[in-house]
């Protein structure tokens, strides 16, 4: 399987997906 980090487009897409995960974590951790 090809490493997604070899593709700049997939790297950026994963960056935005991770942002969504981080935003959810911010709300869960802060309890807000």
């Amino acid at each position, binding site marked *: 399987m090809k490493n997604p980090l070899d593709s700049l487009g997939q790297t950026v897409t994963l*960056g935005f997906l991770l942002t969504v995960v981080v935003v959810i974590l911010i709300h869960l*951790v*802060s*309890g807000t």
Partner: protein
Amino acid sequence: MAEIITYAWWIFAFRWFHVLSAIMWIGLLWYFNFVQTPTMPKIPAELKPGVGKFILPEALFWFRWGAMATIVTGLILAGMNGYLADAVKLGIDEHSPNITAIGFGMWLGTIMWFNVWFIIWPNQKKVLGITPAGDDEKKAAARIAGLTSRTNTLLSIPMLYCMLSASHGVF
């Protein structure tokens, strides 16, 4: 003069230097990932040494010291603002999404700084011939440095979201 250079002014000065050095660091990170790496295969063989021998060492110098200046000014800034310890603990028990957001941003930035100084730079030293390495070792080092640089590009997106959202009224 004393009325102008207040504690708040120093906080602003460190924020200014933090942003300046962060632009130096992330700007060069994106230059490597968005410009240099994708363009290298298209550059004629006789011109490639110009990039590897002249542009890359200079860019890596400002890249790694930009990273160092960013983390140092960032930690001073968080300390001066009084939220360093709470942010390191991700704002648990603070019930403040701003502190939790800056905490996540700081941890993501710290992982990226670690990657620059302890993975990318030692491997790039092999690629550039600063650290002696055989051809196979150089190839492996270039692969590790490249993938870590891509990882930092990925992490820069949520890291910047955290840094900006913490102080620009998203929460």
